[in-house]
């Protein structure tokens, strides 16, 4: 008997009685000021909410340094226009950067490793969750996942109209059977493992800005 068969048999030795799951009929509704609830939750998670209009988001966010001085930026391809274009100053890294953003040959996660440090990654998420300040994001590629993790600063755009009340509502919108990798992101990478002192930027991004885009 294989280990598998032995284990499956062992599980039927003295079976537990069936139980009817007490799934709730009613779920909490969208709060009165959902974005302000989300803002509070996001702030608890170490993130920051920014409201903006599609065309103006580049000006609404706080960049880690002068925008013109950024050289290592990853922008997801589904980020709506305007998309930040690299500055005119042509450092070798910038050439690689445009390779990344255009997803040309050589633009892989492995190549991403060599681009350390990545200053900013800009993502576009599907929807936000009011009760906990998280967004649901499906990276378009392993490259994008890596870029989200290696960047010092993370900017996530989400349509302001795409807001659900709770995780129950969230899972109604997620097709998990078709999702190779997807995550709820709720803030910068963080830890409180040293005497419970909150430190942002444990391994991944130190800051996260969530931009609610009004169309």
């Amino acid at each position, binding site marked *: 008997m294989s280990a598998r068969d032995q284990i499956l048999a062992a*599980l039927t030795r003295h079976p*537990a009685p069936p139980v009817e*799951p007490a*799934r709730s009929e009613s*779920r909490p509704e969208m709060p009165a000021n959902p974005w302000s609830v989300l803002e509070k939750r996001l702030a608890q998670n170490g993130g920051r909410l920014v409201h903006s209009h599609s065309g103006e988001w580049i000006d609404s966010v706080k960049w880690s340094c002068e925008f013109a001085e950024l050289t290592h930026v990853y922008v997801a391809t589904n980020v709506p226009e305007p998309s930040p274009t690299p500055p005119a100053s042509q450092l070798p890294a910038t050439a690689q950067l445009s390779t990344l953003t255009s997803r040309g040959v050589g633009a892989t996660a492995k190549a991403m490793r060599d681009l350390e440090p990545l200053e900013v990654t800009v993502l576009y998420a599907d929807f936000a969750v009011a009760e906990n300040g998280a967004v649901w994001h499906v990276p378009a590629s392993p490259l994008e*996942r890596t870029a989200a993790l290696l960047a010092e600063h993370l900017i996530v755009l989400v349509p302001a109209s795409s807001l659900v009340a709770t995780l129950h509502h969230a899972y109604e919108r997620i097709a998990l*059977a078709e999702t190779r990798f997807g995550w709820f992101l709720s803030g910068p990478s963080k830890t409180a493992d040293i*005497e419970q002192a909150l430190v942002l930027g444990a391994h991944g991004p130190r800051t996260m800005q969530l931009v609610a885009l009004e169309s």
Partner: protein
Amino acid sequence: MGHVDRAREFVRDESRTKWHDESLWFVRAKRDEAADTVPDWEALRDEAATIKRDALSRLPDLWRQFETAATEAGAVVHWARDAEEHNQIVLNLLEERGFRRVVKSKSMLTEECGLNPFLEARGIEIIDTDLGERIVQLRNERPSHIVMPAIHLKRSEVGKLFEKEMGAPVGLDDPDALTALARQDLRKRFLAAEAGITGVNFAVAETGSFVVVTNEGNADLGTALPSLHIACVGLEKIIPAPGDLAPFLRLLARSATGQPISAYTSHFRGPREAEDIESPAPAMHIVIVDNGRSDLLAQPSFRDALACIRCGACLNTCPVYRRSGGHSYGTTIPGPIGSVLEPSRDPKAHAELPHACTLCGSCTDVCPVRVPLHHQLLTWRAHLAEGGHHPTRRRVAFGLAGRLFAHPRAYEILTKAGRRVARRLPAAWLDRLTSPWTEARTLPPIPARSFREQMRARERQATRGPR
């Protein structure tokens, strides 16, 4: 040395005990605040508890379903009957590929199986990437808490450790700076790793997906770059459908640390896509582990403990855990849930643990999945007594007392005589006779007459009537 002795040692340092107790109470308080923001908190607990009980009643079906779906998605599924098999499977996966550099995110299961020492003894470098786990790994000790592994350490102690292991300047104890050093060091490890091992918070039967939850993003970094992802999952961690994740994820972070949700809640289904120039091609291997779980499932008194989602809330609220520390328990998982799970592995070694408890019941009240922890601890005491794991002296004493209490006349005669003696003894003698109690407490004045005697006197008075 059991919990009693280690706890006594721990409590000797009054200020440190106070600090440890307050640190954990702080987390309990944050959990309370988070629960306040969820209007359907108790209904959620019911939902999560019953989904788990339902799943536990049909594990074989759910795992078969999971295996089919996960395999279809490109993952390879392995089955391990015990810790040794689990460790061997992981080792084989690494050796087949000639991999020697491994990063690992938090997994109490791998801790339970002793994976790290097993691999290290065979020349594999395995680095724990959760900061708290990394700290205890460097100190060569067990985590003292399942969610906050280094909660027992002060920043200065981490500082000293980092001086030794990470080239920190002498006297550095600022958590930001210490974390920055760890970030740098671990970033190198992530980039150099050939394989990433993760635990699994929830396996979803319907889709063959699983969820890994972190605040640091270390599970993601550990699996985004290396080509091999090994996910280790206990038999009890499966739930039927994607929608079932909602109640658990609404309860987990709030119960654990008072956060609305963790920073990263990652859903995996099969290996990541291959990129053109990637070699070797990404692979995902899932190791399903029994290691005593099917035994526990077969015990009606304790099977509910398998519902545990490892949030740690019971540890944070336990007044005994807070004042004795995780290392006092001598187990992989300490605290109330540990004291329920561990004795089933080795009743003899852990017979003390269900007694490291006042049965206050706070643990049961915070458990998001309604494991009746303090009732199970009480049940354990009966099992251990019957199994001969209780000290004989205690059993004899209770046997005598039990007989005495069943004979009211004998009880009255003996206690009357006892009180008479006690009232005549010098206080110091009496204290010594009752010393386990009087070590720290002063006895009250012993009454001359018991309640029964006074009742009888009253009755006699009443029948005599007024004079």
